[in-house]
């Protein structure tokens, strides 16, 4: 009995190779499955976080709107009624009392204006009717009138035709007002530029100030509530943003909002 040893060794090697190859294939497949499951879990968590954030922001806006309307209708109305009542006292008081009455009426006028500003800030009234750009312009005029800072708005193309859902308009409006607030509070800037345009299928908004800027490392390490709000709102409407800033060189953020997602 003489077996072909070469053939038998070949069988042995083939078996060994097959077992090792199978082990490797199973191992790779298992690893791929683990990675896939981990990725799916992460994606689910991100979606859940986003949904939670949306719900929080939505409820926040609803509450703001309610408070704004209550302030405008209830307090504003009551103040107007008080003013009318005080008007009815005109020519019925002596000179000294008339002076007090005039001061009181001036105070009420100031209160009416303040209440209107606060209620408009809480719930921008023109957003649903006039759209984002007109509301932004009105807001910019208001800031410019204070003389604190100069805001320049530039339209690259005719944006009046662009219609955005109210929720998304409100998110962009809140982002821009928060950016202006940050600039006024922290940047020590004299001028803000807002550039609106259309880039293919995106609405492009470039916000820029000439303030002191900051190191991006600071933003990466920790961001304040204002900046977190900006990031959350932009994430909520699927907008992409890129920040450019460094100490002494101002602050710039380019926002791209996909118009298709608005449909």
């Amino acid at each position, binding site marked *: *009995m003489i077996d*072909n040893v070469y*053939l038998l060794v070949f*069988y*042995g090697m*083939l*078996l060994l190779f*097959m077992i090792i190859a199978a082990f490797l294939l*199973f191992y790779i497949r298992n690893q791929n499955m683990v990675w896939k499951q981990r990725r799916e879990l992460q994606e689910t968590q991100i979606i859940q976080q986003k949904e939670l954030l949306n719900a929080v922001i939505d409820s926040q806006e609803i509450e703001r709107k309610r408070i704004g309307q209550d302030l405008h209708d209830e307090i504003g109305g009551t103040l107007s009624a008080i003013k009318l009542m005080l008007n009815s006292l005109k020519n019925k008081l002596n000179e000294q009392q008339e002076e007090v009455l005039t001061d009181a009426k001036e105070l009420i006028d100031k209160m009416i204006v303040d209440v209107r500003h606060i209620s408009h800030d809480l719930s921008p009234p023109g957003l649903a009717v006039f759209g984002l750009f007109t509301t932004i312009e009105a807001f910019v005029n208001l800031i410019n009138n204070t003389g604190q800072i100069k805001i320049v708005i530039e339209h690259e193309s005719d944006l009046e035709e662009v219609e955005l859902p109210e929720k998304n308009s409100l998110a962009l409006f809140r982002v821009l007002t928060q950016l202006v607030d940050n600039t006024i509070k922290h940047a020590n800037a004299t001028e803000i530029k807002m550039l609106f345009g259309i880039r293919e299928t995106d609405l492009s908004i470039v916000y820029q100030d000439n303030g002191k800027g900051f190191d991006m490392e600071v933003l990466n390490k920790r961001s304040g509530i204002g900046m977190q709000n900006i990031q959350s709102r932009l994430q909520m409407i699927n907008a992409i943003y890129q920040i450019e800033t460094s100490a002494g060189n101002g602050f710039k953020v380019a926002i791209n909002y996909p118009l298709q997602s608005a449909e």
Partner: protein
Amino acid sequence: MTRDILTAVVVPLSILIPICTFLPKYKIAGKETKTIFFYLIFAGLVNAVAIYLSTKNIRNLPLLHLYTIGETVFLLTYFLLIFENKTIRKILYIAVILLPIAFIINFLFFQSIYEFNTYTRPVEAILITAICLVFLYKSGFVEDFLKQPRSWINIGILIYFPTATIIFILSNYFVFVSSNRTLNNIIWDVHSILVLAMYLAFAKGFSLINKKSK
């Protein structure tokens, strides 16, 4: 003596465990488990004839050549029934026709029927192991893996065939060349234990057969 009881009595009789487990489930069993059942009947009969011939001092190695052909046909048919992939099924169809022919050619022209078929049996074992691994890979990791009859049948196949391949390769050496009788005995005891483990795995698989798994 203990060795003789294991290889000559316990293991041959252990084939009755899966057979008896299967019998009450015959009507609800699927074609693939029925194929394994008939394979066990075939193996049991061949084993009984081999033991009978052995007691009559007649050389029973020619039976091994026939058994290899039968085992190949039964197990490849089993895999044909459980695979859905067309390419693999085509390969299995070709194998189920060509391998028996190759095995016949082997004992007609290459290896005597009074020797172990060391050229063909490892090919059969390697092929069956490979197909079984491919099936495991393709079927994926299902949650109720150990509740499926075919999983246990595949476990049985994977317990026996890869290790037995080494024994098949060296069987002529162990029996006809090596003068080490103790080593020879240990090797065939290991083979018997592997056969027993395969039968027990089949029995476990058969016990899980229900109307759903058909």
